[in-house]
């Protein structure tokens, strides 16, 4: 067993106190397993004071800054380490110095477990906020090489532009390309060039040419971190041992561009450097990375990973040639190689927060030099757990944050049965699918649609395409039973004129907790419910119609007692659900409220010993059964 440097451990724990700090902590901690240099310790100690300043940007009415990144209809402007995202129609060039009078836009998104989380993305990338420009002045137009290249690319046919931006300028216009950010194609490109040069010149000359060429790229492209990494290892690697310079590289990144430590662009190359150099380890590492950052693993991506790299390298070389010589190299090759790049953009979707522990364990065993067989075995188990959803062995009821709309998932332990109640709007079907896939759910035993409103069954068609659904229930029927679990239909009790009143009212019991789901039923349907069933007790009630004042009448509250109300409503929704009057009523009746607007995704888990609650805004609680 290797000795541990206690300082590093304490330092790691301290780093944890920063947002998402455990990444860095794990990284440094793992590095210390093999490396110990007193000097580094002191350097880190000194530099870490930089991180003591938390990121709490103010949002000024007016700001100046340099354009550092282009997106489809917005740009990123940086000034002294703080970034602002500006939505604009004006064509700006990279490295323009602009002055903006801004109207700040509030982001209309609450948190999710698995879907893209705007808030943490902003924090990680030090983006202060999103704004529109009242006035936009270009104080000094771009004189950099980057700007020149951009203008050059913009003269090319429109269809080619995104790919050229990605491969030549290292700017994914839609921000989805991790390949461009990791810069693997540069590495390949350099290898290609040195390979060609190797035929003609001596080794020393080739080495020097490589360094020179990298430096040249660095200057032109304004120091993308991917190239900095390559350059760094070119200069500092001794006898081919890249591992020994890793801590220094970590420091460098930590010092100049801390957000990078969280990103794939840092983790993938560094991780690949650390793990044993054989195919199986590499594939497992990619599996783990994917399972951490994305809601599902796509097996193709790591099998063809190498080939995507190569294709991108060749394309970027041809892209350069086309830009310089104006001959259509790129245009032709693009057709041949496009499928590869398509694949890349298809598999790299939303950023999420899948349970870290699994990933951590895998990474730990990969990095620490355990016996290969054991590591492989362990990772194999992890992989099975992830893809089958057995990572979450407990039963759960989740209110999926679909914005304005409803979607609720009931899952029995080990995916024995999955029932989805409503799908949310069509536009939210992504979020539902991501949630299901992240839980390893490939089929639904039942899809229950309470009624035909768009915000309840809009995603039905997409869901039916993507999932195997055994049964779709849209009408009142006898209790629906699977295993020992029964879903009871309480309503609608008659035909109402109002469409909302005809919505299905469901009740079920899991592990001692009783649930009532009111759908969109209004006070009229509530009245009939009370009359038919009399006084009732529940633990959780998803109150009717997203908390609108037409539901949750006083009579309902007097007859149905419950301790927690679930509300599914969107941030800043035009109907202003939930109604303040209803919230006040719930408060006065001593009922706690969980609202997807604030809590994001809400999951209530059931284990053999206790029931618990976790929400995607990082709250958790043990549910003690208290009836009031």
């Amino acid at each position: 067993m290797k000795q541990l440097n206690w300082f590093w451990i304490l330092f790691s724990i301290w780093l944890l106190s920063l947002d998402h700090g455990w990444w860095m902590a794990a990284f440094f901690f793992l590095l210390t397993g093999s490396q110990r240099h007193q000097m580094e310790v002191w350097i880190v100690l000194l530099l870490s004071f930089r991180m003591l300043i938390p990121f709490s940007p103010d949002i000024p009415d007016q700001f100046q800054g340099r354009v550092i990144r282009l997106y489809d209809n917005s740009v990123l402007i940086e000034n002294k380490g703080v970034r602002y995202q500006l939505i604009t129609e004006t064509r700006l060039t990279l490295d323009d110095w602009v002055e903006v009078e801004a109207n700040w836009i509030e982001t209309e998104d609450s948190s999710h477990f698995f879907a893209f989380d705007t808030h943490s993305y902003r924090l990680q990338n030090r983006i202060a906020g999103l704004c529109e420009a009242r006035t936009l002045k270009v104080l000094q137009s771009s004189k950099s090489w980057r700007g020149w290249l951009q203008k050059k690319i913009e003269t090319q046919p429109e269809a080619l532009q995104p790919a050229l931006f990605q491969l030549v300028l290292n700017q994914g216009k839609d921000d989805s390309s991790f390949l461009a950010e990791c810069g693997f194609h540069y590495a390949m490109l350099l290898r290609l060039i040195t390979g060609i040069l190797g035929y003609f010149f001596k080794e020393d000359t080739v080495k020097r040419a490589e360094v020179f060429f990298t430096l040249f790229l660095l200057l032109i492209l304004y120091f993308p971190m991917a190239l900095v990494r390559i350059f760094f290892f070119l200069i500092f690697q001794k006898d081919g041992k890249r591992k020994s310079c890793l801590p220094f590289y970590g420091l460098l990144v930590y010092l100049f561009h801390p957000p990078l430590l969280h990103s794939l662009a840092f983790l993938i190359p560094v991780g690949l450097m650390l793990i044993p150099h054989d195919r199986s380890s590499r594939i497992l590492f990619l599996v783990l990375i994917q399972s951490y950052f994305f809601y599902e693993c796509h097996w193709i991506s790591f099998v063809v990973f190498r080939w995507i790299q190569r294709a991108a390298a060749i394309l970027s070389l041809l892209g350069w040639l086309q830009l310089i010589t104006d001959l259509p190299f790129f245009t032709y090759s693009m057709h041949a190689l496009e499928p590869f790049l398509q694949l890349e953009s298809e598999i790299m979707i939303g950023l999420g927060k899948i349970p870290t522990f699994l990933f951590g364990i895998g990474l730990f065993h990969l990095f620490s030099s355990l016996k290969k067989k054991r590591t492989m075995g362990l990772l194999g188990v992890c992989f099975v757990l992830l893809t089958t959803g057995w990572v979450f062995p407990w039963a759960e009821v989740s209110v999926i944050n679909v914005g304005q709309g409803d979607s609720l998932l009931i899952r029995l332990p080990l995916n024995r049965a999955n029932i989805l109640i409503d799908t949310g709007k069509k536009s939210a079907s992504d979020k539902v699918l991501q949630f299901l896939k992240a839980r390893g759910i490939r089929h639904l035993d039942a899809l229950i649609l309470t009624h035909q409103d768009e915000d309840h069954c809009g995603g039905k068609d997409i869901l039916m395409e993507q999932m195997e659904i055994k049964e779709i229930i849209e009408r009142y029927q006898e209790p629906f039973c699977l295993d020992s679990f029964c879903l009871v239909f309480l309503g609608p009790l008659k035909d109402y004129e109002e469409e909302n009143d005809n919505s299905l009212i469901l009740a079920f019991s899991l592990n001692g907790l009783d649930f009532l789901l009111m759908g969109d039923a209004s006070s009229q349907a509530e009245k009939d419910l009370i009359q038919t069933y009399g006084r009732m007790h529940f633990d959780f009630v998803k109150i009717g119609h997203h908390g609108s004042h037409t539901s949750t009448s006083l009579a309902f509250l007097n007859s149905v007692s419950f301790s927690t109300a679930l509300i599914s409503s969107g941030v800043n929704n035009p109907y202003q659900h939930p109604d303040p009057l209803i919230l006040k009523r719930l408060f006065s009746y001593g009922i706690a409220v969980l609202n997807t607007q604030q809590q994001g995704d809400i999951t209530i888990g059931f284990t053999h010993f206790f029931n618990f609650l976790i929400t995607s805004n990082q709250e958790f609680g043990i549910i003690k059964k208290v009836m009031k």
Partner: protein
Amino acid sequence: MGKLLIFFIVLLVSFWIQWHPWHGLDEPRTITVEVRGEIENPGLFVLEAPATVAVLMDQLEFKENASLDRLSFQQVLMDQEILIIPSKAEMEGTISINSATLEELMKLPGIGEVTAQRILDYRSEHGGFKRLEELMEVPGIKEAKYAKIKDQIRL
């Protein structure tokens, strides 16, 4: 082994820092009710939610001529509610929405036979009104109509 242990400690600490407990259920919810009118000790009363009038009653000292006709013991008090205890004289001539007949209800302004019948229906369906405002849950009675009749009714 030591390394593994420390790894799990790090994991635990990270969990501890990133997650925070939800206090929704244990959170003490107190409501404030203002009581005025025919009582000896008017003022604000702080009660633990959910609180019914029966709970509040222990703390109130009624004057001799106070009338309880507008209160139901089962009524759940709302936060920041204002209760006005009327005198017996004021209550004279008012109509009890919990016991009035169809003809009596129709004497109220703006209440015709249809609405009066609906009130009766609601009463029989829900076992009576537990607070005056509940009248607004009867179809056909909105805020404007309720404002007109609220001084002429009791529970």
